[in-house]
């Protein structure tokens, strides 16, 4: 038998760390990391918006994203509705969900100690995970859209079509959110509530109503991010906690409460993970993301774009 096998050689395991990696691979990996990071950024943006205004740390953030992903999967499975087409309707549903959660559950806890808010949202997260487990089971689920395997080639650069669509959608949604806070009366009022709670009450703003609006917007953001992430990753009910942690890493890196910081943090983490995987070892991708977090906490505890405490 050995005679039939051409060019038989003794197998060697070569250490190839010193082998030259083509430059286009760096480019491809970097672009992929930035695109993924933009979607991460949008997800974290919701967390940052909620904390920045309501001062509640949403420990059910990843779980809320998973909920949106399952809504998208259900619509795709039942009616073949493309997740990108359903982005706005699902974000709207998540807005209502967030609004109701804030009004019914969180508002009564606003003046209570932090640990109570913390436990409340952890409980909400656990309920969502277990509810999804009961409804959908533990199987990995995904959507098979017609463009699932598409990519665009621009010279040596190969861009994953789904990541590109998701990143564009992330930019559009983020821009809309920035515009809302900057140019609308409601946005200005929400910023006023965030800047000075007592002052907002004094001038007659319905602060709790604006809190609910903000939580709804944060939920809509994370819902939109979930729909986009569904094009990139498969989903299980247990996915949520990992993304809650990731969102925390991103917003703490970018600056808790800072919207541009969340987007920047997302891109930074996405890019760091991608390049660390290429330059060192893929197993250590998360380690590098956490290393960035530790560095930021040491050198700039308020985050890259966070405001220094007075």
């Amino acid at each position, binding site marked *: *038998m*050995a005679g*039939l*096998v*051409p*060019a*038989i*050689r*003794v*197998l*060697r*395991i*070569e250490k*190839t760390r010193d*082998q030259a*990696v*083509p430059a286009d*691979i760096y480019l*491809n*990996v970097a672009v*992929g*990391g930035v695109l*993924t990071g933009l979607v991460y950024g949008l997800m974290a943006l919701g967390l940052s918006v909620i904390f920045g205004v309501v001062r509640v740390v949403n420990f059910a953030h990843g779980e809320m994203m998973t909920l949106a992903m399952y809504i998208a999967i259900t619509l795709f499975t039942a009616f073949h509705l493309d997740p990108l087409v359903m982005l706005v309707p699902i974000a709207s549903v998540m807005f209502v969900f967030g609004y109701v959660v804030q009004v019914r559950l969180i508002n009564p806890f606003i003046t209570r100690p932090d640990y109570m808010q913390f436990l409340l949202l952890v409980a909400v997260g656990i309920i969502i995970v277990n509810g999804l*487990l009961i409804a959908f089971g*533990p*199987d*990995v689920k*995904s959507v*098979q859209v017609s463009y*699932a*395997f*598409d*990519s665009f*080639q621009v010279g040596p650069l*190969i861009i*994953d*079509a789904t990541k590109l669509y998701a990143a564009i959608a992330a930019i559009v949604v983020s821009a809309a959110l920035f515009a809302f806070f900057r140019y609308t009366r409601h946005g200005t009022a929400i910023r006023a509530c965030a800047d000075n709670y007592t002052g907002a009450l004094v001038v007659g703003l319905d602060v709790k109503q604006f809190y609910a609006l903000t939580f709804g917007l944060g939920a809509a953001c994370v819902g939109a991010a979930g729909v986009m992430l569904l094009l*990139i*990753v*498969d989903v*299980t*009910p*247990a*996915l949520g906690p*990992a993304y809650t942690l990731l969102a925390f890493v991103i917003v703490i890196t970018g600056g808790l409460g800072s919207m541009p910081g969340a987007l920047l943090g997302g891109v930074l983490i996405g890019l760091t*993970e*991608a390049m660390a*995987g*290429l330059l060192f*070892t*893929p*197993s250590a*991708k*998360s380690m590098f993301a956490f290393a960035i977090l530790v560095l930021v906490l040491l050198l700039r505890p308020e985050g890259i774009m966070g405001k220094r405490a007075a």
Partner: protein
Amino acid sequence: MPRNKQTYQTRRRFNTGFASALLAAGIAPFNVGRAQGAALKVGVLLPRSGYQAGIGQDCQRGVDIATGVLKDLGLPSLQFINADTESNVDVARSRAEQLIGEGAQLLVGAFDSGQSSAIAQVAEQKGIPFVINIAAAPPITEQGYKFVFRNFPTAPMILRDAFIDQKEIFAAVGAAPKSVVFLAENDTFGVAMQKAIPGILPKFDMPYTILDTISYDPTARDLSVEVSRAKATGAEALLVVSRLNDAILLTRELIKQRWTPVMILSMGPGWYEDQYLKTLGKFSDGPLSFAPWYDPNKKLSKALDAALAKVHPGVNLNTNHVYTFEALLIAADAYKRAGSSNPQALADAIRATNITDNSSIGPGIQFDAKGQNDKILGGGIQNRNGKLITVAPGAASNGKPEWPLMPYNKRA
């Protein structure tokens, strides 16, 4: 109001009660014989949720078909107590303790080496037999355990057979890759395989060189960097040790990054799983998996195939079903021979197992002094049009290998 006679003890009542007690004590020695008529309580531990949920639930299909097939084989019935390890070692340990507490007389599981190691410690400590369905890390049967048995090859055995089968296929198609890049997930199984390679490869004059070894997290949700890095090595073929989710992710990335290796040579699960075939459709065709497999020509394999088609129509019989079933076959066979559910008697009976009309490739099921079935052989399987064809070894094959992999962009 008349006095209630029931409240008084009479001589007649005392004598009746005493006689009943004597009768009960008299038949006590026959309890063992009665236990033979009762079903053996088997705790089945599988990762039914978490990142291994897909495979864990696939293993469950082996449990689903067991009752009918065991009955047809004339073996005693088993009562299953299911538990979910949640793809987590610590949960596996606590669930094993819980099952034993609930009366499980024998444990079966747990697909994963790390989880199986944890369960083995509990089983040994409690003196309850544990039959491993799928787990390849060698240390599990190197601890001197008396209650732990494995009807599944160790990582070195899998590798040995994988390389033998690969060479057989290369010879059959008259071609072989000159270089490969090794992608391996870094859980207990993956690391065991990575460690085993340097010791085993020099013994097999393989035609290829490994250009790079890329290790990754099996729970990763994006493997684009891993595939980019693999592609950058310029290797002709992929050598992979993966699970289901990462096998799907790797394939997606290969397509998106427009790279079709000459062949994908998988030395673990994932690529032959039903969910892989269904999720990827036409893109699932072609990869060769070298894994512990079943002999499609054996009588029991045909019976299992028929039973699976009845219970789970459209699902291909695979390693998960066969080895989970065989673990239960070992339990039922031992229970029959032991004539008791006594743990020590069951363990002794399992140690003396000699099942020759089994399903997996090889001469049958026997255990060595360490509790390891060291006679199992691996097989080479190729995905074709949503079906799994055994292409090696020749004696257990039902088709010829196709080479090379059809480019992903040319699949109709």
